[in-house]
């Protein structure tokens, strides 16, 4: 078991390293931070001084090594825009993002999974078709389109809810809905097919033949088996707790990590970008690790010993 976990952790760390390296390469090669931050018509000496101050004149591999070394020491650099440590900038914004993504996750799971289960139990009925139509609509409409439509209706036309910013509790309603509905649709569809697959298995018929009432068959026999594939999707959603809000935060002018990232990329503010990426990949990777371990908990077939021989 130890080796199992060690392998997974090793792979996780490697993924993070690769993500950060990739981002480093792309950002450095795609534009000059000096020009972005200082402005295109600053005098050449000022640009040169900026580059020197930030170590941008060194060869790229040297910059990478320096950067990597700094990370290992816990030094994530400073924002080129306002000089504050990148970690601080990012950490300030985390609660704001979580204020959106956690309720959105609750919405996805709380709406999507029951809807999917209900649809599976009432397959091909009117309710099933209606739920699935909404689900498909939910995940085909991009979150920013949904967000803009919501703003148009509820903020502009009806004036019930604010169109942006983060002043009151009312501000989170529209962004959470915009983010959550799409995920709820995905989960509903996924849960439905996982349930249908499980309900078609022979052991469900055995349970009924044993005299288990239908409700108990669904709760005690079907759901535990359907949970196994569903956990993957939920795990993915948990993993994107940090990253998933980028678009919605921009639409609703929400001061979260996503907005910070967008601005930092536009400015080629390398330290901040890399810090956000580190955070995002760490979250995703940890969540995947937890899902892997959950598999072992939920599905005894994955736990270890080879089955005995015999029978064909």
């Amino acid at each position, binding site marked *: *078991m130890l*080796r*199992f976990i060690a392998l997974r952790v090793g792979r996780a760390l490697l993924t993070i390293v690769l993500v950060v390296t990739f981002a480093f390469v792309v950002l450095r090669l795609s534009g000059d931070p000096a020009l972005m931050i200082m402005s295109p018509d600053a005098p050449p000496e000022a640009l040169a001084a900026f580059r020197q101050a930030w170590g941008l004149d060194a060869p790229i591999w040297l910059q990478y090594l320096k950067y990597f070394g700094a990370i290992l020491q816990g030094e994530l650099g400073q924002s080129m825009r306002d000089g504050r440590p990148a970690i601080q900038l990012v950490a300030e914004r985390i609660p704001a993002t979580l204020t959106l993504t956690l309720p959105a996750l609750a919405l996805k799971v709380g709406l999507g999974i029951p809807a999917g289960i209900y649809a599976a139990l009432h397959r091909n009925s009117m309710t099933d078709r209606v739920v699935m139509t909404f689900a498909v609509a939910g995940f085909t409409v991009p979150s920013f389109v949904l967000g803009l439509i919501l703003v148009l209706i509820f903020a502009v036309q009806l004036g019930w809810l604010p169109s942006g910013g983060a002043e009151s509790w009312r501000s989170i309603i529209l962004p959470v809905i915009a983010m959550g509905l799409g995920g709820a649709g995905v989960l509903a569809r996924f849960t439905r097919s996982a349930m249908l697959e499980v309900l078609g298995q022979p052991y469900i018929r055995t349970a009924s033949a044993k005299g288990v009432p239908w409700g108990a068959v669904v709760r005690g026999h079907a759901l535990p088996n359907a949970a196994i594939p569903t956990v993957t999707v939920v795990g993915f959603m948990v993993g994107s707790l940090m990253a998933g809000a980028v678009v919605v935060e921009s639409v609703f002018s929400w001061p979260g990590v996503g907005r910070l990232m967008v601005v930092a990329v536009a400015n080629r503010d390398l330290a901040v970008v890399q810090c956000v990426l580190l955070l995002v990949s760490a979250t995703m990777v940890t969540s995947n690790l937890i899902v892997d371990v959950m598999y072992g908990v939920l599905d005894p077939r994955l*736990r*270890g*010993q*080879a089955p*005995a*021989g*015999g*029978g*064909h």
Partner: protein
Amino acid sequence: MSLLSLDGVSRVYATRRGMFGRPVAVRAVDHVSLAVEAGQTLGIVGESGCGKSTTGRVALGIERPSEGSVLFEGAAMPAPGTPEWRRMRARLQLVYQDPLGAMDRRLTVATQIAEPLAIHGIGDAADRRDRVAALLRDVGLRADLAERHPHELSGGQRQRAVLARALATDPALLVCDEPVSALDVSIQAQVINMLTDLQEARGIAMLFISHDLKVVRQVSHQVAVMYLGRIVEQGDPEAIFADPLHPYSRALVSAIPVPGPRRIARVVLTGDPPNPADRPSGCAFHPRCPVAVAACALTTPALRPAADGRLVACHLVDGVAGTA
């Protein structure tokens, strides 16, 4: 000279015990020697884990034996993937249990029957069409059915199509691995009759692998009974099925439920078939054998001729028990 001969063939797989256990060598096939004569059928029977399917794959040349040699038409079987091996595919063909899985969903049956001809460059387009038509007649498949896709045919029709494709290149040997196990009794009979008719007409040899003793008795000229990778009894099917000598053959034959009177008293074995990764010492069958003695746990019995010429691997039949 036999058409196909396996001499001391073993096939060993390296696996692990459980997810983190130490590596263990699994002898799926253990020192198996057999021969298939031209135009004759050798049947191999046994239960799951006995190694019969692996033996079939080694005989075809799809897998290389870890020990021993495979000779086909007097020459050593080339290594898989080499050009000589590819050319040899025309002489050896495989038919197995799942006809739907053996065929491509997207192509019509006629196209798939013609495919081996195209691959081996036999005849031109017109010749191939004629050959396909002749093959369809031989297997009793209507020409209009051949224009359909595999999933549009019944199980029996599909198996006929698979056979037609296998016969396209006029092979000398057909390896059949459970070819009728998935078919209903009445369709089974049709396919079995077709196989024996084709054998008579074309002189094809067959290696017929099955767990169904009744079917094997019907089609085989020689039979080998396998247990945990070894042959335990080999010889004339009539003799073996009427009066099995090896205790396992006896249990196996007596286990077959038959309508009507029973020839052999039922021997019910205790316990489960063993795990090939966990071989018992000495004779692999001794833990379940109703007549095992001390010697059986110590030495593995060799396959030796019995009184009527068949081969048996059992200390008690040999008469060597007590002299170990």
